[in-house]
């Protein structure tokens, strides 16, 4: 398929879509699937068929729409109305009212329990109004298992442009211009990484997509892969073209069966259409992608451990340098980026690096997808421009703290991150500001805690996670995390003294400075940040133990 044929196909798909008056998207993201959206989808298809509306109403399964705790969700286009908490039985009345009579069913509208007047056009709702969707623009609007749907929303046009009207150097230049930074958490400038791999001369190079998302409470990459797998794939192919690789691997964690299935399907469809495989779109560029399934080790999200796992070895990290860009898979230069990073590539190629860089802050361009969870009224998947402050995210988008409780802390970055207190909520969220606060951007998990949370317990929870997930290769992480966990337990249970707290703090610094990989280096972060901002919780436990010992 060449550029013109792709354009014609895209126009044809859009034209065919116009034949339908309405498009009903039934959310089949992981959250909605688990609350029973499959039954809603079946019932919706049957109802539309029974009522003879098949020629005017299109029903599709879609990816995540965002407000996951309100599922199962159904979105009706073009009016952008979202209905919540549906089940198979509610579908017929909904079709009668909204589609046949054209009157929205007020009591089933999204957020009808929180808003005095819920919005018929969901885009008007504060939850969506404050968001900016680049990565998630197709999520919840197209069928993730249909390459035609993706082509209909300009899919693979960035690839066509790159292959026929651009060059690897130009693509890398655009990525650099965009100032895109790695969305896996560390925030390394993507363009520089691409350029480094591009410059290394080798007979074979690799592209690897890190989809081993493992932070507790994080589901961004999962939702992107489940909702728009072709977008990620297109990003990988573009990367392969830019750096001169012929083979890619997507390392997806085994706990994400739907993501694996949909990505596998995307690979098949892309091969059939000639976007993947030999001589892609008639050019002399060949590239293919294989899936590797993670077996449940958190540490395999660390890039060197992930590469070892792809090679079939025990998934343990190795010291860097050398970085994978120089010596990665089987010793060859390897580009490894996270799912969300790859999902940003096609928009950059299409709209240009400069335009992309206009969103966000000077140092952190673009948007960031967060998985909002915990003690917040509306939890789910959101995408905001970099630089949005936490207060807006939690109180405007998330609707604040339920049950009349007071906010206590926002945890970002999972077991590698930290807890941010009330007084810092107005800080704009970007890589640097979170680091200054002793936390990290991380992959995008954002857990809200209210006054009922005991921060010693929070630190202990994350430390226990690190104890379980430490690979055991280096001593500070293997023994240090266990010792820290035991000390935290001692404090939590009211058996500790000031000396224990001092030992704990010293240990935290040693583990942070001496561990081999990011897991160990960042394992003390939740502890250190709670000690910094919530020391009173620790002191209270120590007082309790002093009293108990009288």
């Amino acid at each position, binding site marked *: 398929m060449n550029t013109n044929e792709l354009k014609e196909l895209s126009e044809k798909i859009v034209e065919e879509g116009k034949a339908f008056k309405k498009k009903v998207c039934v959310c089949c993201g992981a959250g909605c699937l688990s609350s029973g959206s499959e039954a809603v989808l079946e019932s919706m298809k049957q109802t539309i068929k029974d009522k003879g509306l098949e020629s005017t109403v299109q029903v599709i399964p879609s990816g995540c729409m965002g407000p996951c705790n309100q599922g199962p969700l159904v979105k009706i286009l073009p009016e952008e109305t979202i209905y919540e908490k549906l089940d198979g039985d509610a579908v017929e009345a909904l079709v009668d009212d909204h589609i046949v009579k054209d009157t929205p069913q007020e009591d089933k509208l999204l957020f009808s329990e929180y808003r005095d007047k819920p919005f018929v056009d969901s885009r008007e709702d504060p939850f969506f109004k404050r968001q900016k969707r680049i990565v998630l623009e197709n999520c919840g609007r197209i069928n993730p298992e249909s390459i035609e749907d993706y082509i209909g929303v300009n899919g693979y046009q960035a690839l066509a442009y790159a292959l026929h009207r651009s060059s690897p150097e130009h693509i890398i230049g655009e990525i650099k211009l965009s100032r895109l930074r790695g969305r896996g958490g560390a925030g390394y400038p993507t363009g520089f990484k691409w350029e480094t791999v591009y410059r290394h001369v080798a007979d074979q190079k690799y592209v690897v997509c890190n989809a081993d998302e493992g932070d507790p409470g994080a589901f961004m990459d999962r939702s992107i892969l489940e909702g728009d797998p072709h977008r990620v794939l297109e990003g990988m192919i573009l990367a392969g073209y830019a750096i001169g690789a012929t083979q890619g691997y997507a390392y997806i964690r085994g706990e994400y069966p739907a993501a694996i299935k949909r990505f596998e399907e995307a690979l098949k469809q892309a091969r059939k259409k000639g976007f993947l495989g030999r001589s892609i779109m008639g050019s002399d560029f060949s590239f293919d992608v294989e899936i590797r399934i993670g077996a449940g080790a958190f540490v395999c999200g660390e890039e060197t451990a992930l590469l070892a796992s792809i090679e079939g070895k*025990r998934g343990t990290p190795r*010291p860097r340098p050398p970085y994978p860009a120089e010596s990665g898979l089987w010793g060859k230069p390897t580009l490894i980026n996270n799912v969300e990073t790859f999902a940003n590539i096609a928009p950059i190629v299409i709209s240009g690096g400069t335009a992309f860089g206009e969103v966000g802050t000077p140092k952190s361009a673009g948007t960031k997808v967060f998985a909002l969870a915990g003690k917040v009224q509306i939890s789910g998947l959101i995408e905001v421009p970099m630089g949005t402050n936490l207060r807006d995210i939690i109180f405007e988008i998330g609707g604040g703290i339920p049950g009349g409780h007071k906010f206590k802390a926002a945890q970002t970055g999972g077991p590698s991150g930290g807890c941010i207190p009330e007084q810092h909520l107005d800080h704009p969220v970007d890589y640097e500001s979170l680091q200054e606060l002793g936390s990290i951007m991380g992959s995008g998990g954002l857990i809200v805690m209210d006054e009922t949370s005991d921060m010693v317990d929070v630190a202990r929870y994350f430390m226990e996670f690190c104890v379980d997930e430490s690979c*055991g290769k*280096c001593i500070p992480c293997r023994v240090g995390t266990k010792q820290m966990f*035991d000390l935290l337990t001692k404090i939590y249970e009211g058996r500790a003294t000031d000396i224990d707290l001092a030992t704990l703090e010293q240990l935290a610094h040693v583990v942070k*400075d*001496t561990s081999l990989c990011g897991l160990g280096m960042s394992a003390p972060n939740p502890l250190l940040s709670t000690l910094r901002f919530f020391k009173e919780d620790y002191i209270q436990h120590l007082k309790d133990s002093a009293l108990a010992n009288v």
Partner: protein
Amino acid sequence: MPDKITISINGTEIKTEEGKSILSVCKENDIHIPVMCHFPGLTDVGACRLCLCEVKGYNKLLPACTTLVAENMEIQTHTEKLKEYRRVIVEMFFSERNHMCSICVANTNCELQDMATEVGMQHVRFPFLNQECAVDASHPKYVIDHNRCIMCTRCVRVCSEVEGAHNWDVKNRGYNARVISDFDQPWGESETCTSCGKCLNVCPTGALWAKGSVQGKLDKFPEKITDLIEKRGIH
């Protein structure tokens, strides 16, 4: 011919060649850096973290064993911070399993014991984890006592890289990680072990020993393994 470069270690200028590790340059210049998982001739893994050094321009500490020297590199090997960290790391080793010297075959012939002296460890500030580990004496000639193991994986590497048998590997994660024989079978039932004894000779502690060894009287000949590696030209 590798390029000649100049680096500085602890403030002293040193002329050396590209492609060498910080550790090997230090050895050539009689600068002693403590190591535990490193064994001459085996692939370095950077796991024991004792050889960590401060290198100007890096915000992380870098292991001397796996970091290659580069032109104008400025390295510090014995700052107060590094010395303190090394002491804490050795304390962690001692707290992990059972390292009661007085009842160990390797007493007075143990690298961990020597290391404790070297870094000036006087006591262990952390509670002993007191893990209950197995002792596998199923092999006709040898014993593996996991209580003494510090997971340096020298045995795993020597078996795989020098003997070519790959009897040893590692199972589990974190502090539950253990060295295993074949697919976690008793050593005596191993189909890959050639009973060569190389693992015994590279083991830094009393985790691997020959039957008949008496407390404090363990014989080990690591230099023979080094010699063999050199003569065979491995690496």
